């Protein structure tokens, strides 16, 4: 294969711009919904992933369209990076009929099977066996698909996650377990809840490769993901990636406070490791991005999010009769 000077880590320039754009889209989407939650235009809650964009973009951005993902309660970023459109996501947060889930799921359950997003789940760790099952289907039907299961450091002590990793290992399933270790499960430090120094060491116990990945580095996340995908598609089974990252804001709109469990200095330190700024620097040095392009992408995404909010605002509420539909598939 001819490598042009603009290739980086074996990916073409356009791909890196695409991954960077995904990060910006996630950041702007999340930043925009926070005031909307405060104003009450978005009801319920949401779990913003600001600060963690490199994991979503670095993982989902290198998947094939038909690869599956299963996400968790902090899933907006994963869904955007896997290809969901922001208007239907925003409309879902607004609980409108035009939302991705017709206003019946909300932030914690966004799903789009057309994009091979089996969905976000609000029960910590519960997506792991579902991801494993999708991988089992891929293997049995020989589709060549891989599956990514996103979960947080809080899920690392859930029994069903262990069961699922074990089954994926014994059956050599094409699944990547991506643990976004943002250091806190709500208020509880991950380091106090396991005796391991590295959560990725858990993988050894299941006989699968496990790696700790600097989760704010887009390039590194993408590299580890591509290697895991190669193993998966070659029939070598699952991989565990512990992506160390940090959520800038509180756990959720319901509990935005963080001071009781983490220091201002720590937050400031992690903000200096902003994954978007880091990507701008790295991709800039590689000649793939410049200030003008960055500004242009920022403006385009801002406009896109404006459109998404306007679409959500003017969309109708679901009809009352809708509450009775979709309980059962017709039989």
């Amino acid at each position, binding site marked *: 294969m001819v490598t042009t000077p603009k290739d980086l880590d074996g990916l073409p320039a356009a791909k890196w711009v695409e991954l960077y754009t995904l990060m910006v889209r996630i950041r702007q989407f999340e930043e925009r919904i926070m005031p909307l939650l405060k104003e009450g235009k978005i009801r319920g809650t949401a779990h913003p992933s600001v600060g963690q964009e490199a994991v979503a973009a670095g993982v989902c951005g290198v998947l094939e369209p038909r690869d599956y993902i299963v996400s968790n309660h902090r899933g907006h970023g994963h869904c955007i990076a896997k290809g969901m459109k922001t208007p239907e996501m925003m409309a879902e947060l607004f609980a409108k009929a035009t939302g991705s889930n017709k206003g019946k799921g909300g932030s914690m359950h966004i799903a789009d099977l057309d994009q091979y997003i089996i969905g976000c*789940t609000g029960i910590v760790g519960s997506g792991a066996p579902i991801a494993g099952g999708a991988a089992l289907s891929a293997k049995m039907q020989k589709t060549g698909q891989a599956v990514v299961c996103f979960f947080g450091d809080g899920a690392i002590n859930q029994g069903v996650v262990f069961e699922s990793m074990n089954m994926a290992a014994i059956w050599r399933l094409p699944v990547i377990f991506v643990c976004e270790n943002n250091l806190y499960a709500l208020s509880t430090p991950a380091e106090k809840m396991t005796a391991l120094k590295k959560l990725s060491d858990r993988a050894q116990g299941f006989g699968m490769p496990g790696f700790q990945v600097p989760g704010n580095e887009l390039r590194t996340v993408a590299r580890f993901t591509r290697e895991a995908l190669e193993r998966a598609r070659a029939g070598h089974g699952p991989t565990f990636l512990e992506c160390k990252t940090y959520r800038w804001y509180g756990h959720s709109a319901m509990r935005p406070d963080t001071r009781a469990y983490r220091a201002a200095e720590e937050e400031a330190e992690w903000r200096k490791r902003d994954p978007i700024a880091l990507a701008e620097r790295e991709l800039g040095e590689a000649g793939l991005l410049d200030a003008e392009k960055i500004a242009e992408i920022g403006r385009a995404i801002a406009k896109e999010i404006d459109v998404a909010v306007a679409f959500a605002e003017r969309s109708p509420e679901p009809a009352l009769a809708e509450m009775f539909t979709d309980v*059962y*598939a017709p039989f």
Partner: protein
Amino acid sequence: MTMHTLTVAEAICEGLREEMERDPRVFLMGEDVGAIGGIFATSRGLQEKFGPERVRDAPISEAAIVGYAIGAAVAGLRPVVECGGFVDFLSLTMDQIVNQAAKLRYMFGGKGTVPIVIRAAQGTGVKLAAQHSQSLEAWFAHIPGLIVVCPSTPADAKGLLLAAIRNPNPVIFLEHKMLYFVKGDVPDGEGLERIGVAARRREGTDVTLCSYSLMTHRCLEAADLLGQRGVSCEVIDLRTIRPWDKTALLDSVRKTHRLAVVHEAVRSFGAGAEIAATVMDEAFDELDAPVLRIAAHDIPMPFNDTLERETVPTVERIVEAVEKLG
């Protein structure tokens, strides 16, 4: 229609085999389903026939077995799973059944289906005490999005299993340990049955006995004895608990004007309470007596033989209670 004779266990095995032959998406997964064909030998010989991929032995990880089935189903397969055989073990899978399987389609706004069948054995009779003898159909029937099936005959076990596998929704398929060796006629050919349709097992004019699973047989025995004493009983076998065949039961009650609901699960908050309340809502004026619930006492299942036998409705208890209906 020509018939052949099978036990319930054999009928289930025949149904599994025929569905796997008919539809390559169907596969079995669970604890010990391979070499020994499951703890109750309901998949005997199937791994030999279909191989270890489609008759897949799983580790003792009940929650993940069900979760894997959900993921595989959403991705296009038709899994039938067994979690160690006993319904009691499904307590370990409740998040996957209740929060995931039952709700995904609704939460996703109607996108996707979860066509899984979770098979499990209920009931007493084998003296395995409180953790291996429960009847938990009401747990599952309480959850919108689930289908709950409780067959009582070999023909229904097969015909409803076929219907369950072909159904696009999650089905909890509850068998009974004491019925596995009961023989009966099974139609040659497919013998597909419909979910949600009751069967009238005996016609009568004085009292309706409404039941399902093993207790249907106790009701039939009780009906014989009551018949000898001049009480004509109609026996309705619901076969499916959710959705249950309200129309068939109400039709019967409009004829007999008396109703006893008989089940092996504990009485409080059981299926009998729901059925009784519905009949009172919709046919109060038809009733000549309060609706009777004949069920297990509200206790964990004792190990002792006599205590176990007396915990759940016996034929004698059914007869005695129905006679008092007047």
